């Protein structure tokens, strides 16, 4: 099953940095630069996502981790331009997706990118499927919209996709309604829908959070093998650090609307720089600790994003805070000592800093 109309010039799986002769582009699928998405509420302007920049290579898997309200989902929704407007609005930044300027695209053309080039998987499979339509229809909706398949061709393709995501007797189940599937099965259907047109990028927004723990591993394994096979780049949003470590090549940690640290999985988990990342890693339950002890928590609360102020956003909760942290927010700076692609936003861990 190969993509029916994948542009021939699309380079796949080349390491970033290497230029493609035909297009003059390096192996980067997605460039996000200084993305800012605000919500205009009666209580003030919420800076939900601010100065977020990252890139993603073809076929690469990037984890976006962070606590609730850190801006992970808003970042993902902004890429697909699905932020509800009003109250939300993307107020700045650039998103370059495979040479397309997504933020400059007219609505109608953006609609043709969604589902065709960018697939989306949502958190709760129990509510993400239309209860009044058979699942076969819902899978076909994408292929019929974007690939112009006939009704019967779309049905055949839907059955193939259902089989691919591991649903037994796929042909017989095309006419079944969502309530006839269990949660894990529905998430498989959602994956089939998201991958129906073989998009170059798949955004999975906490795909296993609503599922039973026993099903989580199966779904993640399915996602991993399918995206590997299709060379689909993935942005995996999760607050489960274990899943991020198992699935991703790179991880970006978000806090209070910013990316505060990013790097290869081993760098982030082995040599975390930013105190927030360290605290996050420390708050995981661990097998090698004394049983029965309390889990470590991070004192305090995330800041109010209506008026974040000029300080480092983690400063109020940071055990290593100094005056400079309150005065100015640090920039994302490279940390070549701990990893080639490692970067963090922290005064204390910059070269010559006071945090070891």
């Amino acid at each position: 099953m190969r993509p029916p109309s994948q542009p021939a010039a699309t380079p796949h799986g080349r390491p970033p940095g290497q230029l493609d002769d035909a297009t003059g582009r390096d192996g980067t699928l997605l460039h996000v630069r200084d993305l800012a998405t605000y919500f205009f509420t009666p209580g003030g302007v919420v800076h939900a996502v601010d100065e977020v920049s990252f890139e993603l290579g073809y076929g690469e898997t990037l984890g976006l981790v962070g606590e609730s309200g850190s801006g992970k989902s808003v970042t993902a929704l902004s890429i697909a331009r699905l932020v509800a407007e009003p109250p939300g609005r993307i107020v700045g930044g650039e998103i370059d997706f495979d040479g397309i300027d997504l933020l400059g695209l007219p609505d109608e053309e953006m609609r043709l990118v969604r589902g065709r080039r960018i697939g989306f998987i949502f958190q709760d499979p129990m509510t993400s499927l239309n209860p009044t339509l058979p699942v076969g229809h819902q899978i076909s909706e994408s292929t019929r919209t974007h690939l112009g398949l006939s009704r019967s061709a779309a049905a055949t393709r839907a059955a193939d996709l259902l089989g691919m995501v591991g649903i037994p007797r796929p042909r017989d189940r095309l006419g079944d309604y969502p309530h006839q599937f269990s949660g894990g099965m529905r998430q498989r259907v959602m994956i089939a829908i998201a991958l129906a047109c073989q998009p170059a990028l798949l955004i999975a927004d906490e795909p296993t959070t609503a599922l039973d723990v026993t099903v989580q591993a199966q779904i993640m394994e399915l996602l991993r093998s399918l995206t590997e096979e299709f060379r689909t780049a993935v942005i995996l949003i999760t607050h489960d650090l274990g899943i991020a470590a198992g699935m991703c090549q790179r991880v970006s940690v978000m806090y209070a609307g910013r990316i505060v640290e990013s790097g290869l999985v081993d760098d982030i988990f082995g040599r975390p720089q930013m105190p927030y990342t360290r605290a996050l890693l420390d708050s995981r339950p661990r097998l090698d600790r004394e049983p029965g002890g309390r889990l470590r928590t991070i004192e305090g609360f995330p800041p109010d994003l209506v008026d974040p102020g000029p300080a480092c956003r983690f400063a109020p909760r940071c055990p290593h805070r100094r005056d400079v942290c309150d005065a100015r927010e640090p920039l994302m700076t490279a940390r070549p000592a701990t990893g080639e692609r490692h970067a963090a936003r922290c005064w204390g861990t910059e070269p010559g800093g006071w945090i070891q």
Partner: protein
Amino acid sequence: MTTPIPAPGDLEPLVARPAIGPRRDAWRRLRRNRLAIVGAVIVVVLLVIAVLGPALAPWPYRVQDLDALRANSNRPLPPFSPGHLMGTDQLGRDLFSRLLDGAQISMSVAVVVQLVVLVIGVPIGAAAGWFGGRIDNYLMRFTDVIYAFPDLLFIILLGVALRDTVFGKAMNGLLLIFVAIGLTAWVTMARLVRGQVLTLKESEFVEAARAIGVSDFKIVVRHILPNSVGPIIVAVTLGIPSAILAEATLSFIGIGIQSPRASWGSLIDDGSRWVQSEPHLVVFPAMALAIALTSFTFLGDGLRDAFDPKLRGRQ
């Protein structure tokens, strides 16, 4: 093709009761509501009569049995007269046959008015709910104006203004009346649909549909409206009695159906002049009207309970 990933499908425990969809569940609960079923049966009978009306009637509705009338010294025949089950009116026309003809009028009111209501109310409500903001504001203020305007006055004015046009003469003047009633009745439907769309457009499956690039129009038509079918059906069913009643009222005050055709309202109007001496001329059409209204109301109430999500899975 890919290597299939082992699925848990075959291993999942079997549920004792087969899964039931929302519509089947509603149907199951409707069947247990005796009153609603009685209403449904009567509604079906009325619809059959409406379609077959003239064929079932012992007399054509406009034919006068002058011999019988003369034999009764030119007075309306009482019920159970030979050949006239419910008697005749003062012109010797068979009352039973005219009631059946009236059923046809009443049922076409039911259908045409609700069609007008759906055709106007659903798009306006859907547009208001989907687009929100200024469009919503304009559409809903317009709806409020229609809502606040006195219905009867509007219908009478429209009837008078358009009486002599082609449109006004179509179907013996009935079409105009039906449309006029529909033009005042759609507001409730528009409000209902707007509310449904407002709720459903925030739902995750709509978000998911946007995420695969489904167009706005298709999202409304294929994802939002099908999920509102329950409340819409209920509103249509409960709207029918008021439409029938409106037509009867108009006919009673002489604006609706024109002689020689008859609706239940105009039959009551005609009979009211004889109500002292010949009460059956009022009683029979009034009973027909009452039975029809109650049946639709029972059915509508039953449907409302059946579709009520709070009762889902119970009873």
